[in-house]
C-alpha cells in the first residue's frame, strides 16, 4: 500500500481529445479533494510517470482508475490491460472510453483511407510523402511505434469495466458528484453501485431535463439549426425541424445544448436499457415524419444529409454493428 | 421578368410566320423574355417516331440537351407548336418512365458530347405560359381594343391537351383555357364542341381523303356554330384548315370560307398593335370580313349583350358544372 496510507488514483488518456482531462481540472477546488484523499500514482498529463512504474506495482494496488479514450492501437490496448490488472475500480471515463465517441466515427473508413486523409489530403503539407512506420531504424537501433487496429473499440470491448461515466466530456458537476461518492465509499459512508452501472449521469433522457415546451410531434421538414432564421426559444427544437438527439440521450448534462438553443447531439450516450442509440433515433424521428408518400418522405429525409453522423456521432463503436464495412473489408482483404 | 428557353420549331420560320411575328409583337407587351435555344434542330414531327425509335428520341433530346446547357437558371422550355411541345414533353416523359430508353438516348448523345437528364426541364406550351404564368388579369389589363363583336371558335387541336403527361390542362376533351383567354380579349368564344378534335395532321400528304374529311368536320362545325373565325394554337392546324380549305371544298363540293388565325394574332389586335406587324395577310382564307366586324364600332347599349339566362322553363333542372360552381363563389 501507499506510504501515507491514502488510496491510489490513476488517470489515463488513450485515443481521445484530452477534453476529459480538462473536465477533471475544470472541477476547480474539487481537484484538491482528489489530492487530499488520494495518492495520484499515474496521470501522464499531470505528472511524470513511466509505464514501467505502473508495471512494477502490485496487482489491484490502484483503487480508482479513470480511463478516458478508446482503443485505437496496440499501445492503448497494452495500457488498458495493464491498468485493468493494477486497478480495483476501472471507470470508462467519458464518451470515448464508454462508447467510442468521435474517434469511433473513423470506423466508417478503412485504415488506408484514414492514412490518406491524414498524410495525403490537400489539408496536409507533405511534399516528401512522409508517413509513419511501425518501426524505423536509426543509428541507435530499431524504434517501434504502436500499430493501428483496423477499428476503434471502446474500453469494455478490450477489458472488463466496472463503471461508465458518459459525456463528451463528463460535466464537471457530475465528476464532482462521483468524486464525492468515492470518498464516501472510502470512509464507509456509502456503498458502491452495482458493477456495470452508469455513474455521474441521470436515468432518464435529455428531454426530461429540457425546459422546452412540447406538443404532439409531426415533422414536415428537417432543417439545420444554422439554417433557421428565428428559433422559437421555448418550443422543442425537434418540433421546429431541428434533428435533436435529446429524446434518446441519457440525462445528466442538464440539457445544456437545447437550453442554449442548439440541438442535443447525444454526447451522454443512450438512455438506460437502449441497445443501439442510432436505431432508436432513426425509429423515433422517422415515425413522426408527416407523410405516407415514399417520394415525399424521401424529400423530407434529404434534410438529414448525414444520417450516420447524426445518429451515431458518439456511439458508432458501441453500436450493434460497431463499424461500417469499410473498416473491416479493407483489412479482410489485406489478410488474404 | 421571368426568362424562358424558347424552342420555335421549324414551321415558325416558314408556314407559321404569322404566329412568329405576332408572338414577337405581343411578347413585349406581356414582358415575356424568350431566349431561343441555340442551333436547335427539328423535333421530327410525327414522322421520325414512326421510323426509328432511338434516333427519333435522340433527335428530340439533342434540343433538350442544348437547352440544359443554356439553361442558366431557367428550367422551362416553351414551345409554341403543338407537335414540338408534345415531342419534347414525350421524350422527357418516356425517358423517365423507361430508364433504358433514357440510357440509350444518352449514349447516342455522347457522340455529340451532349447529355440530358430526364426530368430536369419543364416543357410547356406557349398558351400554358400565358394562362398560368402571365395570367388572364395581366392580359386583360393590356387590352386596349376589346374585340367586341366577333365570334371566335377556339380551336386547340390534339396535341396540346393530350396526352398531357403533367396534368396541366383543365380537361382533355373540353379544356377552357383558350376560351377564357379569348373572353379576356373581349371576343365572344363560342362553345365549340370540336375544339380538341383532329385537323388531319400529316394526312394531306398521306391519305388526302382522310384529311379532307377531318378538315371538313371542323369547318362544318365552325359554320354550324356561326363562328366568324377559328383561332388556333398550332401551326399544323392552321396550315391544314387554311391551306387545304380550298382543296377540301373542291373535294366535297362545299364552299366554306372560314379563316383561321393564331391566338397571338388576336392578342396583338386587342393590344392595339398594327395588323401588319401581326402577320395578317399571310393566311390564304381571307380574314377581311371577320376583321371588319371588329373594325366596326358596334353601337350597343351597355348590358344588352348579357348572355341569355337559361330559359325559365317548366322542364327539369340541369346539373351544375364545376365551372358554374366556381362562378357562384
Amino acid at each position: 500500500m501507499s506510504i501515507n496510507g491514502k488510496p491510489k488514483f490513476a488517470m489515463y488518456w488513450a485515443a481521445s481529445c484530452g477534453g476529459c482531462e480538462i473536465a477533471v481540472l475544470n472541477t476547480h477546488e474539487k481537484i484538491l479533494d482528489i489530492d487530499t484523499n488520494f495518492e495520484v500514482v499515474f496521470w501522464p498529463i499531470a505528472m511524470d510517470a513511466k509505464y514501467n512504474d505502473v508495471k512494477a506495482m502490485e496487482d489491484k494496488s490502484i483503487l480508482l482508475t479513470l480511463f478516458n479514450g478508446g482503443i485505437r492501437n496496440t499501445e492503448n490496448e497494452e495500457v488498458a490491460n495493464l491498468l485493468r490488472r493494477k486497478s480495483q475500480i476501472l471507470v470508462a471515463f467519458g464518451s470515448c472510453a464508454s462508447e467510442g465517441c468521435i474517434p469511433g466515427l473513423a470506423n466508417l473508413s478503412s485504415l488506408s483511407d484514414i492514412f490518406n486523409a491524414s498524410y495525403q489530403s490537400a489539408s496536409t503539407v507533405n511534399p516528401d510523402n512522409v508517413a509513419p512506420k511501425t518501426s524505423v531504424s536509426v543509428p541507435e537501433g530499431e524504434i517501434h511505434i504502436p500499430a493501428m487496429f483496423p477499428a476503434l473499440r471502446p474500453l469494455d470491448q478490450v477489458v472488463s469495466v466496472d463503471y461508465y461515466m458518459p459525456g463528451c466530456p463528463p460535466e464537471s458537476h457530475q465528476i464532482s458528484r462521483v468524486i464525492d461518492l468515492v470518498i464516501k465509499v472510502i470512509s464507509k459512508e456509502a456503498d458502491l453501485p452495482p458493477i456495470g452501472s452508469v455513474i455521474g449521469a441521470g436515468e432518464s433522457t435529455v428531454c426530461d431535463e429540457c425546459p422546452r415546451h412540447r406538443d404532439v410531434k409531426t415533422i414536415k421538414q428537417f432543417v439545420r439549426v444554422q439554417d433557421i432564421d428565428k428559433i422559437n426559444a421555448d418550443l422543442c427544437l425537434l418540433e421546429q425541424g431541428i434533428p435533436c438527439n435529446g429524446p434518446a440521450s441519457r440525462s445528466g448534462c442538464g440539457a445544456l445544448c437545447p437550453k442554449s438553443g442548439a440541438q442535443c447531439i447525444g454526447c451522454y450516450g443512450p438512455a438506460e436499457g437502449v441497445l443501439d442509440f442510432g436505431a432508436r433515433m432513426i425509429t423515433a424521428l422517422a415515425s413522426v415524419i408527416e407523410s405516407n408518400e415514399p417520394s415525399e418522405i424521401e424529400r423530407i429525409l434529404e434534410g438529414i444529409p448525414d444520417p450516420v453522423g447524426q445518429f451515431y456521432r458518439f456511439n458508432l463503436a458501441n453500436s450493434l454493428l460497431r463499424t461500417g464495412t469499410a473498416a473491416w473489408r479493407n483489412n479482410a482483404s489485406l489478410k488474404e | 421578368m421571368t426568362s424562358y428557353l424558347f424552342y420555335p420549331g421549324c414551321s415558325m420560320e416558314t408556314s407559321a410566320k404569322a404566329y412568329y411575328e405576332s408572338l414577337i409583337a405581343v411578347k413585349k407587351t406581356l414582358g415575356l423574355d424568350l431566349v431561343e435555344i441555340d442551333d436547335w434542330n427539328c423535333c421530327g414531327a410525327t414522322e421520325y417516331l414512326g421510323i426509328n425509335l432511338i434516333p427519333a428520341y435522340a433527335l428530340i433530346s439533342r434540343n433538350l440537351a442544348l437547352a440544359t446547357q443554356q439553361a442558366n437558371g431557367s428550367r422551362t422550355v416553351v414551345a409554341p407548336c403543338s407537335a414540338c411541345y408534345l415531342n419534347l414533353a414525350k421524350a422527357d416523359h418516356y425517358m423517365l418512365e423507361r430508364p433504358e430508353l433514357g440510357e440509350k438516348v444518352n449514349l447516342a448523345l455522347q457522340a455529340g458530347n451532349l447529355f440530358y437528364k430526364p426530368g430536369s426541364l419543364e416543357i410547356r406550351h406557349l398558351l400554358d405560359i400565358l394562362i398560368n404564368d402571365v395570367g388572364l388579369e395581366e392580359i386583360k389589363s393590356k387590352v386596349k381594343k376589346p374585340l367586341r363583336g366577333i365570334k371566335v371558335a377556339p380551336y386547340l387541336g390534339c396535341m396540346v391537351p393530350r396526352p398531357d403527361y403533367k396534368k396541366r390542362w383543365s380537361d382533355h376533351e373540353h379544356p377552357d383555357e383558350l376560351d377564357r383567354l379569348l373572353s379576356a380579349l373581349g371576343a365572344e368564344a363560342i362553345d365549340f364542341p370540336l375544339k380538341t378534335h383532329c385537323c388531319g395532321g400529316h394526312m394531306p400528304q398521306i391519305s388526302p381523303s382522310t384529311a379532307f374529311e377531318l378538315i371538313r368536320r371542323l369547318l362544318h362545325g365552325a359554320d354550324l356554330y356561326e363562328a366568324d373565325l377559328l383561332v388556333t394554337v398550332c401551326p399544323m392546324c392552321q396550315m391544314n384548315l387554311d391551306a387545304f380549305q380550298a382543296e377540301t371544298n373542291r373535294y366535297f363540293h362545299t364552299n366554306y370560307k372560314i379563316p383561321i388565325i393564331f391566338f397571338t394574332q388576336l392578342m396583338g389586335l386587342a393590344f392595339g398593335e398594327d395588323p401588319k406587324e401581326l402577320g395578317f395577310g399571310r393566311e390564304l382564307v381571307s380574314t377581311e370580313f371577320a376583321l371588319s366586324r371588329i373594325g366596326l364600332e358596334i353601337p350597343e347599349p351597355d348590358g344588352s349583350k348579357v348572355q341569355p339566362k337559361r330559359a325559365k322553363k317548366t322542364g327539369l333542372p340541369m346539373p351544375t358544372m364545376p365551372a358554374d360552381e366556381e362562378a357562384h363563389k
Partner: protein
Amino acid sequence: MLANTAPQTTNPLSTVINPNLRFLEEVSGATAGISRLEMCIQCGTCGGSCPSSTDMEYTPRSIFAMLRAGLREEVLSSNTPWICVSCYHCVVRCPQEVHIPDVMYTLKSMAIRAKLYKDATAPDFSMTFVDMVETYGRSFELGLATRHYLKHFPLRLPSMAPMGLGLLSKQRMEITPHRIEGINQLKAILQLAKELEAIE
C-alpha cells in the same frame, strides 16, 4: 417444342395455326415508354374515338387482338398505323392506359423494316421528311412537298398549284433549306443512335 416438330404445311390457315405468339412482346418491347399492350380488354374505346378509323383496314382495337393472336404479317401490312393521325384521343380515353399511338409508331417502323406496307405513300413521306431533317437538321417543306407530291400525287399538283404559289408568295415557304450549324454533331448522334437501335 411443338413448333419444331410441326410439319411444314401449305394449309392457308397455317399462319393462324402457327402464329407468332411472341409478336405482342416484340412490339411492346420496341415501344417507347411502357406500352401496357397486354392489358387491352378489347373495349373498343380507341376504335370508337379514332377520327380516322373509318379509313383503317382494322380499327386499333382489332389490331391489338391480331397482335395477341400473333398475326404478324396481317398487322404489319395493314394501313392502320399509317392512317393514325396521332390525335391522342384514344390514349386519354383508353380505360387500360394502353399507349396506343406509340404502338402505332412501333408498327410503322417494323413495317418499314419488314417491307410489309402495301402503300408506299406514307412510308415514303416519312422517310423523305427524315432525310431532309438528317441533311439539314430542319425540315424543308418546299423540297419535301415537291418531292413527295411529284412521286405520289402528280394528279393533285394542278389543283395544288395555287396553294403552293399562295404559300410562296406569302412567304410561308422557303425556297432554300436552312441548315443548322451543328449538323455534323447531329449526324454523329443519329449515326450512333441507329447503331444502338440495331443492337437490341
